[in-house]
């Protein structure tokens, strides 16, 4: 069973925290701090498995983590989960986020933490793995987002316009053309007045 899924940055600021076992608010924050403390000490070339800290259940539980650029993805699991399997799961999770947010970065997680929760809910439920097929997950998320958008009514008009432009598929225009030593900067498209 997965006890908790935590995402925090290199300074320990939480970007997502989901607990599948009951802990009080204070304990939750302590667990985040303790986990960050344990994981940030690790070298880059050591294995991705750690014994869990005291708060999360000690040596029966393991912390399985992956470090991507500025973010740590930490899954705290008990002995019924396969360590290598969870590593793959983290990979699938990150790839799914990448697909949903288009080249995901930390800012996406910061501003859309509710969406990240929704994606996670399609993958892990009650501490158990629900779905591992990335395309399946993305399809379901898209459908639900569409449902939300259709309810948004007038207030959703600006958002719909933005996503419409995004999906417009404008041809790629290079910003700089280099011909030998001459560098010509292509001017921006004129704005509508």
């Amino acid at each position, binding site marked *: 069973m997965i006890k908790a899924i935590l995402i925090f940055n290199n300074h320990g600021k939480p970007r997502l925290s989901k607990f599948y076992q009951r802990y009080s608010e204070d304990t939750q924050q302590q667990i985040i701090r303790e986990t960050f403390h344990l994981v940030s000490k690790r070298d880059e070339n050591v294995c991705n498995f750690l014994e869990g800290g005291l708060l999360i259940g000690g040596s029966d539980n393991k912390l399985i983590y992956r470090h991507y650029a500025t973010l740590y993805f930490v899954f705290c699991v008990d002995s019924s989960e396969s360590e290598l399997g969870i590593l793959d799961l983290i990979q699938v999770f990150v790839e799914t986020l990448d697909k949903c947010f288009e080249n995901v970065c930390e800012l996406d997680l*910061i501003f859309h933490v509710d969406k990240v929760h929704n994606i996670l*809910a399609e993958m892990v439920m009650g501490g158990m793995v629900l779905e591992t097929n990335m395309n399946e997950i993305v399809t379901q998320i898209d459908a639900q987002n569409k449902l939300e958008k259709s309810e948004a009514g007038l207030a959703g008009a600006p958002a719909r316009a933005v996503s419409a432009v995004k999906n417009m598929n404008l041809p790629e225009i290079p910003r700089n053309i280099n011909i030998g030593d001459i560098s010509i900067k292509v001017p921006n498209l004129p704005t509508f007045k």
Partner: protein
Amino acid sequence: MPAPIRLRELIRTIRTARTQAEEREMIQKECAAIRSSFREEDNTYRCRNVAKLLYMHMLGYPAHFGQLECLKLIASQKFTDKRIGYLGAMLLLDERQDVHLLMTNCIKNDLNHSTQYVQGLALCTLGCMGSSEMCRDLAGEVEKLLKTSNSYLRKKAALCAVHVIRKVPELMEMFLPATKNLLNEKNHGVLHTSVVLLTEMCERSPDMLAHFRKLVPQLVRILKNLIMSGYSPEHDVSGISDPFLQVRILRLLRILGRNDDDSSEAMNDILAQVATNTETSKNVGNAILYETVLTIMDIKSESGLRVLAINILGRFLLNNDKNIRYVALTSLLKTVQTDHNAVQRHRSTIVDCLKDLDVSIKRRAMELSFALVNGNNVRGMMKELLYFLDSCEPEFKADCASGIFLAAEKYAPSKRWHIDTIMRVLTTAGSYVRDDAVPNLIQLITNSVEMHAYTVQRLYKAILGDYSQQPLVQVASWCIGEYGDLLVSGQCEEEEPIQVTEDEVLDILESILISNMSASVTRGYALTAIMKLSTRFTCTVNRIKKVVSIYGSSIDVELQQRAVEYNALFKKYDHMRSNTNPSVTVITIQASNSTELDMTDFVFQAAVPKTFQLQLLSPSSSVIPAFNSGTITQVIKVLNPQKQQLRMRIKLTYNHKGSAMQDLAEVNNFPPQSWQ
């Protein structure tokens, strides 16, 4: 009132805060705004406000006042509201609040909603935080959804059922009929969660386990299809078809095959197939192999298969990927008891892992190394482990030292080797040795009688240079106290005896006593050792007496008590020291009084024949209390150089009932041993 700000705005604002205090202020301001907005019962913006509240909750700020609002969102008709409402319920609510029960009705309705995503939300929330009461109420709905043809809902219902079973184990029977067709599914998501459900049921109930054994052929078939099916873009992860499902099935097979010959036999072939055909260049392949190995080791597999499994683990040990090495060591640790010989073959690789840079790997390699020590390899292994003890991180030293002591005790090839090993541990990791090891070591040394001189000499040399490592000093002090006579007499056979004087020995013991590096317990050992030497040393007894009396006024209560008691030994019982002059006889008299009144001013006098010399030491008191409630003791020393028969005339004078009394007697019946 202006519209509440969007979540994005809030996040942007909070990110501009430069200090924790500034952030707290912003949060408090926003919380106040949210609270008033809640009070206004505004439906339009409730969703937005709760979303903000959840964000602040993640940062660690209290958000309990939003709990009821989550419920209102769940009850709303809009999907957007429900989504945030259920998320809020999962993050903010738990069984300890009564509020959560109010959700039950909403969830029940939503489980029957026309939109599958709403049903999905309800299943998800119930499966995450449903209490036992909620589970009891809604189990029927979950069971219904377990039989639906909608694969999206079916897979969620399966995991929800697992949660229900965990909360209310008695309901497990209820889900049994629905499990009949679960494995016939084509959808991998449903297959996966079904296997999880079956696994949970088998783990909880031996009856279920027996019942589901008949599924083994079907599981084997599914697994076979997965490996043989060739490329399937839907389920492909790095070239392997749905590794997650493969791992799950392997795990269920393990549970079903355990302790059951028939099932184990049915899965032998497929396990061999997976073990040999799986591509190992990526992590996914290794994850499957790892699970296969664990299954092979756990069921009643044939020996060829077991050897194959251990060899796979051996290959893992040589893998560049640290994660693989880590899991290999973990699994070998689990199998070393049952397949000891097979694991022994990989001993040298395991010992190499002791030199790995990764702390987790080192720890496992250490535990495994200790498990592999036996009578044949003990010398070689100990060399490696002692080297490890020298160079490892402090967090390992205590465990390593204890492990070495245990292994040495079990497999020591000779007493000398044993003592040497102990010495090496004490000098290398002396401060990390556990406290309970000290008495054990002392016991061990006591039993190796022929090694006493060697041991005390080596220990003496060890603490001469450095007496900061407490366990080492404690053991050394004890040995010096016990065998100090051997030390100064230079009797060592095993190695070159050293020249040590009594004073030098006392020097070192006294330094230990005064040093502020010495713990209180260590000082106790040192003081006792000094005291014991008073019977083993001949020239320095006065020095010892002086030292002991100084500590009679030590601040440390433990030391003070010891010193006072030792002082008493010097004073009162000095006569009991071993007699250097064998022709002196020591006689102790005891006088008691059975009358109703005390006898006071009691004086005992004695006279002996001319060839004898008599020495009367002071009596313990001059009053004998009445009714046999106390005695007077007095010691007489008689020098009898000609070994003649001892005779004595004694005179007792005392006051009793107000008058002076006198008693005369002759004693001729001393036992022959006292004067021969």
